[in-house]
């Protein structure tokens, strides 16, 4: 017996009616209808958040990765009397290093801004032994280790920080979060399929007598299955549409944290990303269609 996916049947499951006669052979079943609607809605709601998490952490990982690869910082720590001279020596080396852009020494006010979260806005940077900081854009494949050795040899107190130490774990964490989001989506899909299968089986079991009558008057398995499949496909699509819209509304009203920066920045959908959750009801319909069809055809095998 064939349990092939059939796009035509799926479309008919969602939109087809033919006057409702085919659908009406299955008696209305309140419990399984509500169970399917609720579970599809709840799963779609969760899927929206899992999708948002996967997209946001993906963006975060991409951004951190590109920043990791795009620049390095040279920190020059020296007594105040020598700091300018050593910083200038480092600048000279950096300007002649292949694979780099124009180095830029951070002015005191920028250093003050960086330290502001720890020392407050009124901190006199000049009064502190703050190292000179030089930002250096680098190309992909830049020889970090070569520059580090040269700076150690020629500029005492100069340390090259390629951000690896603190950014790489964050990128790894972001990538793992993205993977968790994707795994969550898959689990939500599998759980939805399981719940719809159970609901469909419950509906089929409650209607064995109906199935028996239909078989006796010449109904093919596919005809009977289609009546159930159509109903469950619609319920899955409707429930998940409501859940998806609720989830998207929830994402939309999340506070905008972009001004504060940090990890929460960008959690949600940006631009065309907002179209992605709209595929959830369609995927739910496909899952509902496949799960119900599988359950129905298997169960009908047992009824002669």
């Amino acid at each position: 017996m064939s349990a092939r996916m059939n796009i035509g049947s799926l479309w008919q499951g969602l939109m087809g009616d033919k006057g409702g006669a085919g659908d009406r052979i299955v008696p209305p079943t309140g419990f399984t209808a509500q169970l399917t609607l609720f579970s599809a809605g709840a799963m779609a709601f969760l899927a929206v958040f899992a999708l948002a998490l996967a997209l946001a952490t993906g963006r975060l990982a991409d951004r951190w990765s590109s920043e990791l690869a795009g620049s390095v910082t040279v920190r020059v720590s020296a007594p105040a009397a020598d700091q300018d001279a050593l910083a200038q020596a480092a600048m000279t080396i950096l300007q002649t290093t292949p694979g780099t852009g124009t180095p830029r020494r951070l002015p005191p006010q920028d250093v003050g801004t960086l330290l502001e979260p720890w020392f407050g806005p009124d901190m006199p940077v000049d009064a502190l032994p703050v190292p000179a900081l030089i930002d250096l854009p680098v190309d992909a494949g830049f020889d970090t280790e070569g520059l580090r050795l040269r700076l150690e040899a020629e500029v005492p107190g100069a340390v090259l920080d390629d951000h690896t130490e603190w950014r790489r774990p964050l990128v790894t964490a972001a990538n793992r979060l993205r993977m968790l989001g994707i795994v969550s989506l898959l689990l939500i899909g599998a759980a939805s399929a399981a719940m719809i299968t159970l609901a469909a089986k419950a509906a089929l079991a409650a209607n064995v007598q109906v199935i028996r009558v239909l078989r006796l008057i010449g109904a093919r398995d596919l005809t009977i299955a289609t009546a159930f499949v159509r109903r469950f496909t619609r319920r899955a699509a409707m429930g998940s549409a409501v859940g998806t819209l609720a989830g998207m509304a929830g994402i939309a009203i999340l506070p905008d944290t972009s001004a504060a920066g940090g990890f929460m920045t960008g959690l949600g959908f940006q631009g065309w990303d907002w179209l992605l959750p709209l595929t959830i009801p369609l995927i739910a319909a496909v899952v509902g269609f496949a799960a119900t069809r599988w359950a129905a055809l298997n169960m009908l095998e047992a009824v002669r």
Partner: protein
Amino acid sequence: MRDVGFGYHGQDELLSGMTLTLQPGMFHFLTGPSGSGKTTLLRLCFADLLPSSGQMTAFGQDMRALSRDDIADLRRRVGVVHQDPQFLDHLPVAENVALPLTIAGEAVDMEALRDLLGWVQLTHHARALPPSLSGGERQRAALARAVILSPDLVLADEPTGNLDWEMSMRLMQLLIELNKSGKTVLVATHDLNLIRATKAQVTARVLRITGGSLHLAGADL
């Protein structure tokens, strides 16, 4: 069927060595004591059961070689009326009667449906739900459902088992009319009076099951 035997799981053969050919356009009675296998024989005829041995063909097809879809197609050519007919209780009588058309994907001719309901005298119950019908009305609704696809063969398993004599004769009259219109009819019943009353109106072949075997009944009927 030729030399057909059948036994339920783990039991001795209920039917054995049965050979029978239903004559097209003929009215047949199948009689015998309770438990003799009348219902089993009828169920074999619409592939609700498959024989344990022997050969059984319907419309030129070996019934043991039929796929599930083939069986469904076969059942569209065989109308069946049970002693206790089952319906889809959530659908009105008219929709139940038209159900074979619906599941066959054929359009329902409302005028023809009204005529059919009129023939079985259920016009006024067209919108009623099956649980509200009496025993006789259920049997007539089942008969209407059985013939709506214009089957070649009509099987009736103790169709009058739950009916009084007057209602039984009304139902038999419908079956006689069907037979006169060219349909092959096989009615299983243990009611000899019913057989005699019917034979007064139509030529009928009477088959009797005794001891798991089939015999042509003679002049005693």
